[in-house]
């Protein structure tokens, strides 16, 4: 084994790169060969190049008003093609089921009358908003963008940890990670086809345009940001920039007679679709928090009257409530009549007396999560909590059983990660992103791999000292398709192809037949040379000076 991977400890967790015998898994062979040719000095150079790239480009996230770089580790997370097909299918299936669920509970609520889930479960969710009952905005889509958090357990099986269908963030790092890796580590990309991620903004823009209110032919799409101090501000600018749309703040918008306008130098301009990155509670001071300075007064009215489409829709939080999560496999069976492709992590519902008693007994060995939290907020990891923390937790769970769920501590899978000079196993999760355009659910190949940098740490959140890794989904090997060349009809997705070309360094391209030149060779115009006689005369004027030896 190479220098940088010598003494690599394989622990009880599943390692994505090295199997239990200590050999490299097939999907990681190219990465391994690039790594094994590097010394720890080389790795440090690459790591510094990645860090500089991010500092210069201002790829940051904000914590408490301070901009911090989001560390990108140089070892990618690689997903083989057959495994990706399962993940892709499983994520899309979940989004379709949750979409059906939201549409149902904000109209007839058959799911309750058919007894699949208790009605009280929905109405007691803090994110269930009656204000949007009965609305079918635009093309009826509510989850335009979803992020489904996946983990791999020690047995090697992929499980869903949670769904995010409100304002999932992180997709910008998927794109910037790829760009940075291509610059810093081109040799690792050699000799394999990695599926591009650059097509995301086009997919998102298409989905947003399709969601426009009926009758609008050329919809104006905007991205609504809480502002420059938001932790995901970088992402908001990147999405607006790559989709070529305006990035607005609440104060840039104005509602008049159920329509939304933005204030421009040319007066008020109509807005049809708002990709909002502001939470429900802050969207409209008339309907929600009246102290919100981020929202737009009258926005909910405009949504109700069909003057504007919000993406994602208001009230989606009821679908990613962690107690509803425990019913998602049932929802998949109920709405889609399919078996769930990716199972959940085992979860205790604490409203059930027997389950609660068991959990309270074993609380020191479990993970307890608030049902409406996101971003790792409020999670208590039993084995690492103090006695006082556990006592406090027991009290709060008894007080509000609806507010909590419990899960076993799962040893997330690991990927080698550069810690100082050595590659060490660090725990990772994966957040694939799905875009629903109303006709189909597209899953971005890859997603955000977050890595917990402290040794043994299982919470991968960026606000808890986490970093990220580029996520590579390998293309199926070419011999699987009938011909080695893709047919012309395969080229429908232009952006994907362009990105693919840029990801394959020309040096390592398989030799193709030489294409004859089709351009005319016109010589480049240069400044006319000095007439020789003139040069000599000028030169003569210099003869008083000592001549240099070569003349």
């Amino acid at each position, binding site marked *: 084994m190479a220098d940088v991977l010598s003494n690599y400890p394989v622990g009880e967790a599943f390692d994505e790169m090295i199997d239990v015998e200590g050999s490299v898994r097939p999907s990681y062979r190219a990465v391994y060969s690039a790594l094994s040719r590097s010394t720890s000095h080389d790795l440090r150079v690459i790591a510094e190049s990645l860090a500089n790239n991010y500092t210069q*480009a201002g790829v940051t996230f904000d914590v408490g008003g301070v901009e911090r770089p989001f560390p990108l580790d140089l070892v990618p997370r690689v997903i083989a093609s057959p495994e990706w097909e399962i993940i892709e299918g499983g994520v899309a299936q979940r989004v379709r089921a949750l979409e059906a669920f939201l549409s149902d509970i904000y109209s007839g609520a058959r799911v309750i009358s058919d007894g699949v889930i208790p009605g009280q479960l929905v109405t007691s969710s803090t994110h269930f908003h009656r204000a949007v009952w009965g609305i079918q905005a635009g093309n009826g889509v509510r989850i335009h963008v979803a992020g489904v958090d996946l983990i791999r357990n020690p047995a090697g099986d992929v499980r869903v940890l949670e769904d995010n269908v409100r304002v999932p963030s992180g997709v910008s790092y998927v794109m910037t990670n790829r760009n940075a890796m291509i610059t810093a580590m081109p040799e690792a990309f050699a000799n394999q086809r990695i599926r591009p991620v650059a097509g995301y903004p086009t997919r998102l823009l298409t989905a947003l345009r399709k969601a426009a209110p009926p009758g609008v032919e050329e919809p104006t799409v905007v991205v609504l940001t809480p502002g420059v101090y938001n932790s995901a501000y970088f992402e908001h600018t990147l999405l607006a920039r790559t989709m070529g749309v305006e990035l607005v703040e609440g104060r840039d918008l104005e509602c008049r*007679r159920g329509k939304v306008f933005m204030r*421009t130098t040319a007066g008020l301009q109509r807005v049809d679709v708002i990709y909002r990155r502001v939470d429900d509670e802050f969207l409209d001071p008339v309907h929600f928090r009246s102290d919100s300075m981020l929202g737009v007064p009258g926005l909910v*009215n405009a949504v109700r009257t069909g003057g504007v489409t919000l993406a994602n829709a208001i009230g989606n939080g009821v679908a990613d409530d962690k107690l509803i999560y425990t019913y998602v496999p049932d929802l998949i069976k109920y709405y889609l009549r399919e078996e769930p492709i990716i199972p959940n992590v085992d979860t205790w519902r604490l409203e059930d007396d027997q389950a609660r008693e068991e959990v309270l007994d074993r609380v020191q060995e479990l993970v307890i999560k608030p049902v409406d939290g996101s971003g790792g907020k409020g999670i208590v990891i039993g084995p690492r909590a103090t006695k006082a923390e556990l006592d406090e937790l027991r009290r709060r769970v008894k007080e509000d059983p609806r507010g909590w769920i419990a899960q076993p501590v799962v040893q997330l899978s690991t990927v080698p990660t550069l810690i100082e000079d050595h590659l060490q196993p660090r725990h990772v999760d994966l957040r694939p992103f799905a875009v629903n355009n109303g006709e189909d659910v597209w899953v971005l190949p890859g997603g955000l791999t977050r890595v917990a940098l402290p040794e043994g740490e299982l919470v991968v959140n960026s606000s808890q000292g986490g970093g990220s890794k580029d996520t590579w989904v390998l293309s199926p090997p070419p011999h699987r398709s009938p011909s080695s060349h893709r047919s012309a009809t395969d080229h429908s997705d232009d952006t994907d192809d362009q990105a693919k070309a840029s990801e394959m360094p020309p040096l390592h391209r398989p030799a193709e037949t030489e294409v004859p030149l089709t351009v005319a060779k016109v010589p480049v115009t240069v400044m006319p040379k000095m007439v020789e006689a003139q040069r000599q005369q000028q030169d003569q004027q210099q003869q008083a000076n000592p001549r240099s030896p070569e003349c």
Partner: protein
Amino acid sequence: MLSRIAESMFWIGRYVERAEDTARLLQTHLRLIIEETAAHEVDACRNLLALMSVDHVTDPTLTDLLRILGYDPSEPTSIYFSFAAARDNARRAREVIPLDLWECVNTTWHQLPTAPFGPSGAHVFLNWARERSAMFAGISRGIMVRDDGWQFMSMGRSLEQADMTSRLVASASLTHGSTQWPAVLRGCGGHDAFLRTYRGLYTDREAAEFLIVDARFPRSIMHGLIAAADSLQRVAQNNPLTARHAEPALRSLGQLRARLEYADLDELLSNLNHEMAVVQDVTAQVTIAVSTSYFAAEEPPAWTTEGTR
């Protein structure tokens, strides 16, 4: 374009230009102060600070001067502050600024000095500040689409340049004697061009003429006023519905141009401080006019009447 973004673009232009011009002003006067005897140091520093509207320091020294105009992040007149403010605005307008230009502004911000420096360190810093501004100007000229964003940025830059040249010109008369003009011309990078234009035979009169009304010299006051008016007119053309919004600012700019263009140069010279103060007043007026017409489009909260209209 969004009013808020337009405002950010305007101020990016102003702040980058201000950083460069402050560097030029400081460089010009550091040399004069160091060449002169130490007895004049406090006077010279106080006059220079007064010219930049700084009056909260009594008996300023060279160190104060470098701090207040150079490296102190909390002084709104410092080069540090200008670059930080430019970067802050660029971050707010991130989605409309080309990546290369953003990286230029962001890198500048990352490289800002973290420790105080003396006169010997000052030249490295001031040269750096001018180079960063030149790089910003070059990248923006080279790759930015000439849309409203560009026009507002150019407008800010041109107004700031006119304003700062007027301060530099006024600084020529801070101490008596005619030796100041060559230094001021050098500060503008226009000394050689001036000598070529006036064949080396010149007086204060010609130097003032060159810096104030010679529109061919891109750092002259006249050039800044014409360029600002030009940007305003293009914005008006691009937005026919709001074309009239440009009128108050255009009127102020035109009146000032006429005043300078048809002024008797000797009178102008004898009244130099007053005339330069007029230039600064007008650039302030134009800034207010542009803000009112294009940036402050916000109306009182409409939600109290929402649904009743």
